[in-house]
């Protein structure tokens, strides 16, 4: 190769642009190496090292705030947008890791490989958020997904967990195929995989906008992400996978990877397809309504709390999608804020489930929660806060987030969408309240099994409470950050 070319290529490499994820990967690799030399069943060190890794990564993310870094020929950008999402992923991963150790031990899988997998998944999510090239985004998606496939099926002796892993893998691979096909079509039309270049090319050649190949590419790419976000009608995998996967992984999946998919989806739609905005907002309008309605209506009929939270997470994806339909600054930054808020409140709720469940998790039904609030006052109060936040009542993060997104929708003139969203919130009240009815209005079960309250899980719950309340009571600062983070 020409020496000159190599030099140009190297100049365009800017390690700072991928520094956070690089650090995370290094920690993950290091952890894998260390595990080789330690006896099986020792996991404490893995928890600590992963947490340190996340914190160090977080510091680098903060350092990059307000000082965007572009690298690898503009295939990667560590801008505010990516940084904000990175914080969301780190929060999700941190809370997940904190609650995992106890859970894995109880279920009989005290295995330290789990933690590097979480770190790799998080790194993949970070690439998705900072990818400004279709290929980078695809790479991030695959890194993230492969890790998640393994984690979802982590309990290899449990049929449900196997089912979750396999289902997620098969359907996930299928959807990735859609995405890749879409990318190929768009490359065929525009001759580029760079997001900005695609956008400029499409904007300059308006005749291409109506081209079936462009539209097919747009739709196929959208399907790839909508599958990861679990938007109706691409949501079928969600309940089974969420129910079968280990609870901390379910929590992680519902917050981290979902936010990552939102990040890339937002970037692609805004960078590449801004010329087609009326078309894709119309498409997403329908999907947002469907997602909210189907998610909420099916969640009502659930008697298993884990499954109920899975369906409700579909509905929450629908609320966030409202922000994309609004397609204005408030709506977009609303999504950023909502995803962070959702990471706190939803993972918090799952953390309570981790402590409430017995081995094998056969008691996460509503009946099993009878009188839970009196038997375990702290967990009861925590669950109450998370549920109120998920309902969207003030002064919690959920309210601030929903307010943000619906304000965006009203501002953009989508009054009816906001009305439908609000009506759906009203429907969701019923199934969240029912948990509380069981927790506080019923007498405790006689054969209630006591499980210990390990410090790590309690810490994750406390952080989640703090986050849910902070983002609800004084959301001003984070809202400003979210505003600065959108394009």
């Amino acid at each position, binding site marked *: 190769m020409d020496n000159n070319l190599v030099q140009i290529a190297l100049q365009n490499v800017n390690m700072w642009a991928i520094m956070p994820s690089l650090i995370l990967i290094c920690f993950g690799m290091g952890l894998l190496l260390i595990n080789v030399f330690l006896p099986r069943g020792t996991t404490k060190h893995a928890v600590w090292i992963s947490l340190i890794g996340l914190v160090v990564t977080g510091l680098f993310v903060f350092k990059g705030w307000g000082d965007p870094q572009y690298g690898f020929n503009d295939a990667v950008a560590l801008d505010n947008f990516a940084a904000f999402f990175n914080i969301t992923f780190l929060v999700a991963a941190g809370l997940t890791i904190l609650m995992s150790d106890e859970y894995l031990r109880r279920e009989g899988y005290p295995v330290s490989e789990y933690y590097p997998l979480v770190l790799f998944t998080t790194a993949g999510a970070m690439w998705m958020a900072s990818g400004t090239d279709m290929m980078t985004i695809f790479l991030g998606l695959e890194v993230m997904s492969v890790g998640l496939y393994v984690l979802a099926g982590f309990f290899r002796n449990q049929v449900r967990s196997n089912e979750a892993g396999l289902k997620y893998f098969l359907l996930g691979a299928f959807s990735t195929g859609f995405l890749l096909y879409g990318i190929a079509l768009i490359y065929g039309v525009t001759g580029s995989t760079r997001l900005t270049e695609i956008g400029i090319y499409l904007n300059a050649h308006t005749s291409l906008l109506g081209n079936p190949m462009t539209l097919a590419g747009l739709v196929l790419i959208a399907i790839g992400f909508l599958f990861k976000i679990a938007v109706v009608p691409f949501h079928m995998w969600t309940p089974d996978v969420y129910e079968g996967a280990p609870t901390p992984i379910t929590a992680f999946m519902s917050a981290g990877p979902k936010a990552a998919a939102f990040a890339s989806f937002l970037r692609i739609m805004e960078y590449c397809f801004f010329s087609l905005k009326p078309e894709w907002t119309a498409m997403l309008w329908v999907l947002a309504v469907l997602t909210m309605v189907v998610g909420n209506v099916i969640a009502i009929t659930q008697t298993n709390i884990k499954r109920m939270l899975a369906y409700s997470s579909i509905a929450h994806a629908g609320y966030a999608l409202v922000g994309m339909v609004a397609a204005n600054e408030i709506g977009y930054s609303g999504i950023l804020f909502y995803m962070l808020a959702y990471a706190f409140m939803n993972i918090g709720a799952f953390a309570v489930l981790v402590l409430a469940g017995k081995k094998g998790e056969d008691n996460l039904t509503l009946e099993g929660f009878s009188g839970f609030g009196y038997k375990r006052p702290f967990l009861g109060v925590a669950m109450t806060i998370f549920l109120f936040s998920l309902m969207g009542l003030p002064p919690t993060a959920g309210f601030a987030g929903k*307010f943000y997104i*619906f*304000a965006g929708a009203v501002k953009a003139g989508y009054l009816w969408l*906001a009305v439908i969203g609000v009506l759906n919130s009203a429907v969701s009240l019923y199934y969240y309240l029912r948990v509380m009815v069981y927790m506080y209005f019923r007498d405790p079960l006689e054969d209630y099994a006591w499980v210990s309250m390990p410090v790590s899980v309690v810490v994750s719950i406390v952080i989640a409470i703090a986050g849910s309340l902070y983002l609800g009571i*004084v959301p001003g600062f984070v*809202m400003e950050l979210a505003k600065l983070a959108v394009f």
Partner: protein
Amino acid sequence: MINTVDTLPAFPWLSLMVFLPLSGALLCLLHTRSERDCRWLGLTVAVATFGIAIWLFLSQQPNASGWFCVEDIEWIGRFSIRYNLAMDGIALVMVLLTTFLQIVSMLLAWPVRRHVGLFFALLLILESGLLGIFLAQDLILFYLFWEVALIPMFFLIGIWGHNRRHEAALKFFLYTLAGSLFMLLAIIGLYVIHGDQTGHYSFLISDLARTELTLRQEYLLFGGFLAAFAIKSPLVPFHTWLPDALSEAPAVGSLDLTGLLIKTGVYGLIRIAFPLFPNATSECLPIFGTFALVALFHAGWCAYHQDDIKRLLAYSSISHLGLVVLGLAAWTFTAWQGSLLLMVSHGITTGALLAMVAMIRQRIATRNLQKLSGLWAQAPCLSALFLLFALASLGLPGLANFSGEILVLIGTFQTRPIWAIMGIAGVVFAAAYMLRLIQRVLWGEPTQAEVADLSPREWLILIPLAILTVWLGIYPATFLKPLETPVLLALGGLP
């Protein structure tokens, strides 16, 4: 975007008053082990809060526009949401009523045995929420307190209620929250319209009142607010949750529900819905009047046919609220003063009656009119006070409700004589069901051999209520005085 300057008084009395109960609630929650401490803590905080309210009543002079103690600081800059508390005469009267009835509630809650700490904590949270509703001038802050006041009542009904408490609590919560979500949407809508129009985004009621709206926009937004306020009030036909919630709620819960919580609906109408949408309001006044009359008759009729005293009182509350709304719909100074006074009187008398129902139920273990009889012979003091409050409730001259009712009727007669005449006929209903109540409970053959008369704690609850009942009947000017300026200002906005 204009940045309004923060204003803070020398001492944030209003914030102290709103957050004192909340901090008391946290202490109660942390200290659930000692039931005795929780009771005393609850009572002390309630008394202290009442003390602040009295102090404000005595010491503060409103400025020209009727406001005092304004606290205004930025809360969420991104959406120019402000932390803005202020008080005028109407708010002052409602605050006095709230803080006073909360002391009664604390005393009435003394015999609660299950989860005492939680019970008192919820009562205190409720108080904070209510005070916030009456004082907030920023719509998001208002909405926050509106929901905060809702949550404790859900738990109060659901945990300590009677047999069908689960359904009643859910019905109450879903019904009222669904209404308030529409209000939230209307708030956002108004905010966006106002911001697009003036370039200055704000949630302050005083700013939003200056928005230029088309009549269609006004109707839509007014409808959103009305959904919340009409359900909470409750106006017929949105009243069905109240009898269920009230009859299933524990004694204290039903006292707070009728005495205070449903007043927030009417307060919202006066404070927010009417001033923000004057044109829609003036178009809708006849409809309000009609529904108010329907409520007056329908609820009165229903009340007459109830055997459960609590359900009877629930319908009687709906009927009284009908009269209040009738006065508002008449849109005269006298009628408005009467309406506001009637809200206070109704809170006192119905609250007292509900407290007494709880006392009777403790003794005879029933609230069924068919099973009660001859209380006078066994417990004369209790019966005498019951008679006093029941007579006050039916509007006997010289007692609390009368002064409010007569002002409403006089004021209504000035603009809508037919309404006033029908209103008088409706008041007769109140006499009918109240006399039936008195006759069934007090007269006749005693059902039980021994019924204890009032205990010292019960005396302590009832005496202040009785004094206020007489006071409001004989010298209502104490409470009418602070209402003058704000009522005049509120009415000035309309032809």
